[in-house]
C-alpha cells in the first residue's frame, strides 16, 4: 500500500487576529500542522500498520512550512515532498490543486491519496476534490475512517449532516478526511523526532514538475481577493447584572414586544 498524504501548515486560527484594514497580526500567532491533515496522516499510518507499505507526505508551500512536514515525519511518515517556489505565490485552490496533481504524478504511483477535508485557515475544502479531478481518480469527502482495503478497492465511512454513508471505491482514490469528535491527536515522540531528521526530504521547484506553467501561481488563479475586512460587529445590547427574576421578566417582555415569542 503506497499512500500519499497532502498536508498544509496553517496559522493557529484560535490566535489569529486582524487589524482594522484586514491585515493579519502575525505577532504571537503559531504555525501548526492543519489538524484535519494530521488526522489524515494518522489514518494513513494506521493503514500502513495494517496493510504494510509506505506513507509519503507532500506540501506545496513556502520553505518555513518544513516544520509542519517534519512533524509528519516525526509522527511516522516515511518520506516527504516539499514543493516550493516563488512561481506558486498567490495560488488559489485551482492553481494549487493543479500544481499538486503534477507533483503527485512525478512522485510516483500511489494507491491512496489522503488529505484533510479542509484547512482551518482557508476552510474551502476544495483541494482534495480538485486534485482528484485533475488526476482523474474518484474521491470521497468527509471520510472519518477507512474501514478496509481489499482487491484494489477501499471501503470508507463518510459523514453526512444527518448520518453517514459506507462507500466502496476503486483504487487509486483520494479521501478527504474529517476527524471524529474527540479524536485524540498523537504528539510526536522523542524518538520519532530524532528519526525524522534522517528521512528522505525532497525539495522541488516549479521547474522540477512538468506542466503548463501558465496555470501556476497568481496567473493561474481565476479568483482574486478584492478586499479583506473584520466581520461586522453586532453591537452590545442590554446586560443585566442584578436580580435574576427582574432581568428575566424584562427580557421576556422585550421578546414579546419584538414578537419573537408569543
Amino acid at each position, binding site marked *: 500500500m503506497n499512500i500519499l498524504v497532502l498536508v498544509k501548515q496553517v496559522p493557529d*486560527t484560535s490566535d*489569529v487576529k*486582524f487589524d482594522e484594514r*484586514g491585515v*493579519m497580526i502575525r505577532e504571537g500567532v503559531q504555525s501548526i500542522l492543519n489538524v484535519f491533515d494530521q488526522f489524515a496522516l494518522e489514518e494513513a499510518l494506521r493503514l500502513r500498520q495494517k496493510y504494510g507499505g509506505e506513507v509519503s507526505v507532500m506540501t506545496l508551500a513556502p520553505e518555513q512550512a518544513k516544520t509542519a512536514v517534519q512533524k509528519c515525519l516525526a509522527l511516522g511518515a516515511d518520506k516527504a515532498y516539499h514543493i516550493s517556489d516563488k512561481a506558486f505565490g498567490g495560488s*488559489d*485552490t*485551482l492553481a494549487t*490543486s493543479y500544481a499538486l496533481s503534477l507533483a503527485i504524478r512525478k512522485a510516483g504511483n500511489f494507491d491512496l491519496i489522503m488529505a484533510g477535508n479542509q484547512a482551518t*485557515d*482557508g*476552510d*474551502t*475544502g*476544495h483541494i482534495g*476534490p*480538485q486534485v*482528484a*479531478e485533475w488526476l482523474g*481518480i*474518484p*474521491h*470521497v*469527502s*468527509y471520510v472519518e475512517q477507512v474501514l478496509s482495503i481489499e482487491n484494489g478497492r477501499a*471501503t470508507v465511512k*463518510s459523514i*453526512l*449532516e*444527518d*448520518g*453517514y*454513508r*459506507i462507500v*466502496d*471505491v*476503486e483504487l487509486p*482514490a483520494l479521501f478527504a478526511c474529517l476527524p471524529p*469528535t474527540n479524536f485524540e491527536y498523537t504528539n510526536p515522540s522523542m524518538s520519532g523526532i530524532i528519526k525524522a531528521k534522517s528521512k528522505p526530504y525532497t525539495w522541488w521547484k516549479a521547474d522540477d514538475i512538468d506542466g503548463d506553467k501558465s496555470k501556476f501561481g497568481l496567473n493561474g*488563479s*481565476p*479568483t*482574486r*481577493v*478584492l478586499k*479583506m475586512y*473584520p*466581520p461586522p*460587529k*453586532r453591537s*452590545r*445590547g*442590554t*446586560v443585566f*447584572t442584578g436580580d*435574576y427574576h427582574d*432581568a428575566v421578566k424584562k427580557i421576556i417582555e422585550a*421578546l414579546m414586544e*419584538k414578537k*419573537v415569542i408569543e
Partner: protein
Amino acid sequence: MSDYKGILVVGEIYDGKIRPVTFQLVSKARELADTLNTTLSVVLLGHNIGDMAREPIYYGADKVYVMDDQIFEPYVAEVYSRALTKFIGNLKPEIVLIPATHTGREYGPRISAALETGMTADCTDLVIKNGRFVQVRPAYGGNIMGEIITPNHRPQISTVRPNVFKTREPDRSRTGEIVQVKPEFDSMKVRTFIKEIVKTTVTGAKKLDEAKIIVSGGRGVGSKEGFEKLRELADLLGGAVGASRVAVDLGWMPKSAQVGQSGITVQPDLYIACGISGTIQHIVGMKDSKVIVAINKDPNAPIFNIADYGIVGDLHEVIPIFIEEIKKIKKK
C-alpha cells in the same frame, strides 16, 4: 466570456425531497438575476423527480432543467460532477450557485477543476457591485471576511451554506419552463459504489436548522444532564436545542447539534446562548439570529458583545426562572 449568460442554481434532492437550501439559493439568485437583468435556471439531478421540478419556479426560477436517471440515485460524487460539468459546459451560465452541503462540497470543487474556473466556498453573501459578481466569505475561523471575484473566467462558481439566505414566500401561480435533459458523460465507468446509508440524527436535533427558536448550551451547562433544563425551555418555546463545540466535544450533545464554524449555521428568530462564552467560531454560526439572549457567569464573556439581552449569572438558576415565567404567560 460574453458567451456566458444567466445564473444557474444546482438544486439538491435529498431523501426524495428538494433540500430547503435549494430554495434559499433560488431566492437569492432571483435578486441577482433581476439586478443583472438575466435569467435564472435551476438544474435538478435525481430519479423519479416528477412534479418536484415545478417547485423552484415558485421561488423565482425561470427554467428548470431536469436530469432524471437512475444513475443519480443514490448520489455519488464522480457521477454528479461529470454530469454537471458536461451540462454546465454546454449551458454556459455566468454564475453557478451550489449548496455547501456535505454533498455539494464534495462534487462542487471537481466541477471547478474540470472547467478550470474559479470557485469560492461557503459564501455568506453574494452581491453585484458595479456590474461585478462579488462573493463574500469568512476565513481563518470567521476572524476575517474576504470579498472574492473571478474576473476573467466563467462560470463563476460559489457554494453557499444552508440558512445563509432567507427563503422567499413561494408564489404558486408563478410559471416557468421545465426542460428534460438527457445526462451526458465523457466516461460511463463509475468507480464509486454506495454500500449503505445510515441516518443517525437524534429526534428533535434535525429541525435545528429550521427552528425559529434555539436554546443552545456550552461549557457552562456542566453536564449531559444539564441539557435537560435547556430542552425543557426549548420545548416550552417550541424550539430546538443546540450546542457549542465544547459541549459536543465533551459528549454532552451529538455532533448534529453543534452550531458554529465546524457545525451548522443557524438563523433563528431567537437564539438563547446558555453558558457559551462566544468564541468567534461559535459566533459565525449564529450571529445572524434576529435576537440573541446570552446567559453567562463571566461578565467579560464575548457573547455579551453580540447579544441583544444578557444576564450575568448562573444559568442553572436563571433557566428555571425563564421556564417559570414562560409558563405563567402561557397560562394567561
